[in-house]
């Protein structure tokens, strides 16, 4: 009886330690994840968003609350800032569910920004546990966490909008005072080598996260190949085309996003 009492007493005297997790003002842990519509090898990383204000919606694809609250991240947050090239929104599935479930989530919420998959480990880095969901987080252009939601996204989206505005304001203020940073532009480079046989590399630059398509056409305007078709991060990108089995001649390559199209030509000599 005494031993049992003492054991219970000792257990109650145990003091819990503080939660180990990233706090506001600390460096945001990096991540690189596949996204809905892409392949396992084509991933979006936090590092590729350097210099931008990043909004993250931690959701579970099958989470009923996230399905109810997801639309606010699209209508009140993403739609508010999507035209600002210094802003990026990312959804991260923390329930590690399959692409089909995430496609269902995209349909029910109407979210149009990229949804990153298999992200439960990212949640652990940011919140110290895998059991959290339905949370907003903002990372400033300096790479530091500027906002970390402790409540459901429907309860704090106005605070999130205010925080993103402040962080974007910091960039414009910084640019005005320094005046040196060149904004990233949408650009399609000449392939190299050119002429080529049978492989060549096409590089290009994106100014924001975009749905990208890179297609090859022959001189008759017939499509020969699609090298890229998916969401890609801003910055420099490149892809190699192996034209084995394709006859010699002039080929047109066309890079298109939601609102911009660029074309160039190249020569295949066999």
């Amino acid at each position, binding site marked *: 009886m005494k031993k*049992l*009492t003492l*054991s*219970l*007493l000792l*257990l*109650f*005297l*145990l003091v*819990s*330690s*503080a*939660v*180990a997790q990233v706090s506001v003002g600390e460096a945001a842990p990096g991540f690189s994840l*596949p996204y*809905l519509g*892409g*392949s*396992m090898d084509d991933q979006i990383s936090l590092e590729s968003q350097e210099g931008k204000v990043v909004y993250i919606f931690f959701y579970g694809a*099958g989470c*009923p*609350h996230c*399905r*109810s*609250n997801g*639309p*606010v991240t699209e*209508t009140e947050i993403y739609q508010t800032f999507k035209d600002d090239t210094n802003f990026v929104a990312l959804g991260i599935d923390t329930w*590690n*569910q*399959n*692409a*089909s*479930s995430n*496609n*269902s989530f995209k*349909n*029910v919420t*109407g979210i149009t920004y990229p949804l990153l*998959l*298999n992200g*439960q480990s990212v949640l652990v880095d940011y919140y*110290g*546990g*895998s*059991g959290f969901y339905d949370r907003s987080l903002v990372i400033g252009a300096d790479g530091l966490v500027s906002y970390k939601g*402790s409540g*459901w996204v*429907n*309860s704090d989206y106005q605070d999130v909008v205010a925080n993103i505005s402040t962080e974007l304001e910091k960039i414009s203020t910084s640019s005005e005072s320094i005046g040196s940073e060149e904004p990233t532009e949408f650009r399609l480079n000449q392939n190299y080598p050119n002429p080529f046989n049978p492989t060549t590399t096409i590089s290009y630059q994106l100014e924001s996260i975009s749905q990208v398509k890179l297609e090859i056409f022959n001189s008759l305007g017939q499509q020969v190949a699609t090298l890229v078709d998916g969401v890609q991060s801003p910055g420099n990108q490149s892809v190699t085309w192996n034209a084995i089995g394709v006859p010699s001649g002039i080929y047109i390559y066309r890079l298109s996003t939601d609102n911009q199209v660029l074309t160039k030509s190249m020569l295949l000599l066999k």
Partner: protein
Amino acid sequence: MKKGIFIALLIFLGLHQNTIAQIYGSNIFEFQYGNLPYQNNKELTTSYNQLNLFYDSDNLSFYGKVEQFITPIEERNYFDLTQKQVQYRDDHFSIRVGNFYETIGRGLLLRSYDIPGSVYEDAFERTRYAFFRDLEGISVEGYNDWIEVKAIRAKPLFNVNPPNFKPDSARRPDLVEALQINVFVNDLISVGGAYMRHNPSFTNDFQEYGSLLLDINPTTNLQFFGEYAFQSDATLLGFEDEDAFALYSGLNFYSGSFGASFEYKNYNNFRLGQGFNDPPSLIKEHTYPVLNRSTHVLETSNETGIQAEIYYTFDAGHTIVSNFTMANNNVFIEQKYREIFLEGYYVVDDYLSFKSFFDYAHDDPKLEEQRISVGFISDKSFNYEWGFVLDLQFQTLNRDFENTGTENYYGSLTFNYQSDLSAGLIFEATTDPQLTDDPRTFATFETDTRFWLGGNASYTFNSSHRMDVFVGKRRGGPACTSGICYEILDFEGVELRFSTRF
């Protein structure tokens, strides 16, 4: 503060003279050899043990739950005293220190629960543990014939984090303090009120809530009950969009073999803390597998709705049940859930009975339309010596963004002998893309039909010992028990459970 109260209680209990004492308890041991489908690691050997030990002596009782989990992967293992409680109780007073279960009102403000015998596992943590949401702290109650008063200061368990989760404080991020008073005006009427203060761990803010309770039984076969809970800054009975409130009420009536019930809910901005409240969902909880996993999960951020049910029992024992459920969500987009359920039970004779059901649902939150479920169950006994149960269920549904409809199949055949021994087979299949798709191949949506086939057997040695065995594949998915919904993982392998009472 908590330490001081506990030490004072121990001194008081130490002075208490014991006359009659008993120790009793229960134990569950579960062994698994197998894996989760789509997991890359090899088959695992896991052992889970749960010991519940009680010590009673007059008005005094002690309780402890010890859980242990062993796998080849060390970081998932633990051995922990996951619950402990000291209680003193007499005819008019009780005090509990440690872990306990308590509900304020009808759960609008606070509800704790235990799903006995369940072992929970999350696909990420892969640690198995008992599924409950208790409170840790202190509870004091006083009661007599006309009044009941209870006060609580405790931290609800955030049970998605397993017992080995570090730090411990992350498992109990919320602190609640509550006082509830119920007055039994007479045999027919009781009224009550509650006050609750909530302190989330992430902030220094306190949120305050109130609640009003009413229970009226004008006649023995008619009951009306209701609860209205609200955040302190809400307009009382204003039901404004920006307010946090929850209204739940119901009416029960029966006359002879006929019974009817009607319930109404109106919840807004009422997800408290990490989800420690569980207002009644007002969705019929089905035991039929195809329906149980299709349930609508309550959205307390905004949900209104009704549930109506009527039933009739014939003299021969036949029964019919009809249920209608309606729920509307409008958090940021309007979503509707509608369900009509019909069930019939027909008794042929003492040895043969049939049960069947039909269910139609429209489920916007899941984007499911025309979800139709049917089932047929036959229970045949041979002189109560041995018998069998055949259970066949089918479900079909459409999602407008998917090209093909989804079908779910369930079939089981179970034989039993003298209520001590049973053995059966369970077969399930689905064409649901959300279940056929391999999560490891994001670029491809696999659509081939998935099958689960498993066999189970159980044997009750005596009133104290029972053994259950499962071999094969078992389908997981959402499951609801007593209004608590959670995810069960698929499993493939062998599972052995040994239950003991002493």
